[in-house]
Each structure stands twice: as C-alpha cells, then as structure tokens.
C-alpha cells in the first residue's frame, strides 16, 4: 500500500501539491489525471522518491521514502518509476539495455533472458532486439522504455504518461492488457498518469484527479460511476469533474464572432 501523508510540494512560490493525504491500495490500477501543469508528474515523482516534498512524506508498505539509504534502495527495487521521457542508452541494443536493467534489480539470469524475449515479442520488437536503440523510432523507443519497467518485476509500477509518446494501437492494446493482468494475477500496484479521461475507464479501477494542488477526486471508478448515475458515460462524468470550464470555453470561443 502507498500512503501519502500531508504532502506539500511547491516550485518557487507556486504550490503544486498542497497538503495532500491519500492511500493507494495494493493491487490497484490508479489513474492520475488533471489539467496540464496541475502536478500529475510532480505527484508521481514524489511517490517515486525522485522529489523530496517540502512537507509530509510517502510510505510504501510502511517504509518511509528517503528515510535511510538502505530503506530507499529497498524501495527503489520494489517501486519502479518510469518518467515520460525515460533515459535510453542510444548506443546499446534493446536487448543489452533490458538485460542491464534486469541485472540492476537482481533478476535471475535465465528468467531475465527469457522475460526479455517475451517483452520483445509482446511489443513487436523482435527484429530490432539486437539493433542499437538509436535505430528505433519514437514509438519503438517508448516501447523499449516500457519494457524496461516491466522487466524489473517490481511490485509497484509508477508510470508517467505510459500511453503517450508515439505508441501505436498494437502497443497500447498490449500495454493495457499487460497492466490489467499484472494487477489481477500478480497483485502489482500500478499508478499512471494520463492526459485524457478516455484512457481511464478501461485501464484503471481507481481515479485520482488533481486540481489546483488539491485532490479533487480520489475514488474507485465503480463508485464514481454510481455517483454519476446511469445516464452519463464515464468520459462525460470525468470531463465534468476535470475540465468543468471546457464546455464554457468552447461556447465563448464560437460566440466571439466565428463566421
């Protein structure tokens, strides 16, 4: 379980997260959404221990982040953070990179080789497995970075915008199914950010909405649906919660004299 206690994070005088407290249950798939610049990535970075919040703290399985070197190293093994633009050694091949990452997480060598091959098959990268990453397209680079997170076999996956970055429909489908099965069968806790509500309904069972530095919504999708009633779709309900001013902005735009 991830526990966030009174976390405050601000850049200069601009507060991004203000006194946030919440819990993310083990084995859940949690989507973090919100307007641009409202702190989705900051929130994930705080969970990942990349940022130390000005106030408050984060605990994963009751171990406090950044408390001691030993604790932090143990948590880094347990919780993997994949930023939107992940570092990739362009001169190494995809296979070398995946094996290198797997070794960082002490994965058994035989299992590592076999898992790497399965990941190449999953993302249709088999032919490029032994080519330098510099030869990969943007979408293929996104796939190899996702594969690098999956090969760690970590219990917690913190993924920043995993469905963006040029991923093709086959890649999106594969990722969606893999995340769902990891969560259901292995109890992996997945927290990911998404720019649009359309990605949430099918990929998450919990939702966190961040607005103006506060948690506007933190609930399971089922409960949110029940709250919205049977008339509206999930997207409609989310749009109302996340972007309430969008409809009004569109109306104002066309009212401003568009022929």
């Amino acid at each position, binding site marked *: 379980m991830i526990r966030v206690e009174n976390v405050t994070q601000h850049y200069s005088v601009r507060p991004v997260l203000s006194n946030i407290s919440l819990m993310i249950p083990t084995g859940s798939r949690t989507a973090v959404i919100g307007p641009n610049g409202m702190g989705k990535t900051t929130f994930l970075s705080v969970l990942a221990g990349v940022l130390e919040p000005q106030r408050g703290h984060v605990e994963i399985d009751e171990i406090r982040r*950044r408390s001691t070197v030993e604790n932090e190293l143990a948590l880094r093994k347990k919780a993997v953070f994949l930023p939107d633009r992940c570092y990739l050694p362009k001169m190494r091949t995809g296979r070398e990179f995946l094996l290198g990452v797997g070794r960082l997480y002490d994965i058994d060598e035989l299992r590592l080789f076999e898992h790497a091959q399965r990941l190449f098959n999953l993302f249709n990268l088999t032919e490029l497995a032994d080519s330098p990453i510099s030869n990969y397209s943007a979408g293929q680079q996104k796939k190899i970075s996702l594969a690098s997170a999956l090969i760690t076999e970590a219990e917690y996956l913190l993924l920043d915008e995993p469905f963006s970055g040029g991923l093709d429909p086959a890649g999106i489908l594969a990722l969606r199914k893999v995340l769902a099965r990891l969560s259901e069968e292995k109890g992996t806790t997945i927290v990911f950010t998404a720019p649009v509500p359309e990605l949430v309904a099918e990929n998450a069972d919990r939702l966190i909405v961040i607005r103006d530095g506060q948690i506007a919504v933190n609930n399971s999708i089922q409960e949110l649906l029940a709250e919205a009633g049977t008339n509206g779709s999930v997207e409609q309900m989310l749009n109302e919660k996340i972007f309430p001013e969008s409809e009004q902005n569109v109306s104002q735009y066309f009212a401003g004299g568009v022929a």
Partner: protein
Amino acid sequence: MKQFTLWMRQVMPPKWFSLLLAGCYFISIVVTQFVLYWFDLYDIQEETGLAHLPSFCLSLFAMLYGCYRCFAFHPIYQDDYREWLAQTPWSYTKPLPRGPLFLVAQDFLILGIISLLSYCHSSEHWHLTPALFFTAHSLMCLISFLLIRKFRSAYVLTFVFSSLLYFHAMPVLLLISVAIMSIISHLGLRESLLTFDKWSGEIPYFLQTNNQTAKEVARNNTLGWPYDLMGPVSSPAKPNREWTIAIALLTGWWSFSVIQQITDGPEFLWLMISIGLWVWHAPHFLIHML
C-alpha cells in the same frame, strides 16, 4: 561472428567515428606513399618524417579512444545517465547498464591491434601509442576525480603524470609509469563508484532534499539587498598545512620535470629550488581553486 560483433560493441565508439579514423589512417598511408614515390624520397623518408604520419594517426586514434572509454561510460560525464542511475537500485557490485567503465578485454584487443600496426610503421616509437591511450584515459579519470572531489586520487595521479615527461624517451620506464598510472586510475574509479550516492555532497543522494528546497533554504537565509552587506561574511577557507605542503611538493615536482626538459644542469638542485619556492610562497590560490 555475430557474437564477436556484439561482444566488441560493448566498448566500441560509434560507427561513424571508427570509420572516420580508419579513413584518416588509410589516407595517411596513401598520401605518404604518393609523396615518397612522386618526389623519390624513399632514401630519406626517416629524415622527412613522412614515415611517421600513419603512426601519428594511430596514436591519435589511441588517444581519442582512451578519452572516449572514460567519457562515454562514466556517469559523471553523462547527466541523463547519472540521473537515471540514481533512481535505480544500482550499487557498485552491479554492472553499469551503459557498458563497462573499467578497461576490459575488448579494450586490450583494440589497443593491441593499433599498437601492432604502429610497430609496423615505426618500430622506434610504437610504444607511444599505448602510452597515449592510457594517458588520455587517465586524464579523463583525473578530471572525473576532481568533479567528484576525490582529491587524493587526483593528487596521486597528477604526481605520476609528470613522470611521463621525465621518461618519455625511455620506452621501458615510460610503459612502467603508464602501468602505475593505470592502476591508480582504476583504484580511483573504484573508489568513486563506491561512493556514487555521495557525488553531489557529503549527504547521501537518497537523503538530500531536492534542489528547489535547497535553493529556497538558501534564499531564506539571506537578508536581501542591501542588508546582505551587513550580514556575516564567510571568510575564505584556510588551507591546512598538510595540503599546502602536498600542493607545494606537487608543483615543485612538476616545475622540476618541465625545467629539466629544457635546460641542462644539476637536476637535484632544480628540484630543491622548485619545491623550496613553492613551500615558501604557500600556493593558497591553488587550494582555493580546488
């Protein structure tokens, strides 16, 4: 063959870079042979220095490769790599995902081939090729030690560097100096990687607050213009006696090594005068620079 290529790829520079250097080498051979043939200079090729042109190209390649092996694989020189690595559970006992930082068998194979080619062109000066490789590699290590503030390793390495000047005309002693230098570089690299989490300060990386916080703390501690002028002024750090003497010895030894290259005379006297001068003037500015 594929296995061998993959094995070599672990340390090889980018393809364009290797091809460029190989191209320069072959052009140097063609140009040399053409000039020797056209002007009929075969009898005096040693005097003209033309015979050494391909060997010079190989030495240049060895030097650039030495720099590359440290620069491309050391996390201190690759910001993205270092930041990513700091977010993983990497520790010294695990291999570096980008590739080996320490010299490996592939390096010695490449160096062996270059040295052999160099020997074919110039049996007198072939030893300069491996010497330049190790010197360039150690120089990049030295810079990394300074960046990580591993001053002890940097100091010892700087001391040994001067011996290259001293022994440059004596192949066996030069290669022994180079071997010692490489061992020191290796130990220094090992020490640097062991303390990876403390590269950005005395507090382990994992326990530091983020930069934003640090900046804000710094800002809160200042009084603001113009009241800063009334605040306490931090005096420049006073160098301790041990470091003053160590720097004096180093600069004295370097001065001596350089002077004895350009003048003939009582070498021991030069050494004593150099060290004496540096100790007397206590080079505080050097310590401040560090």
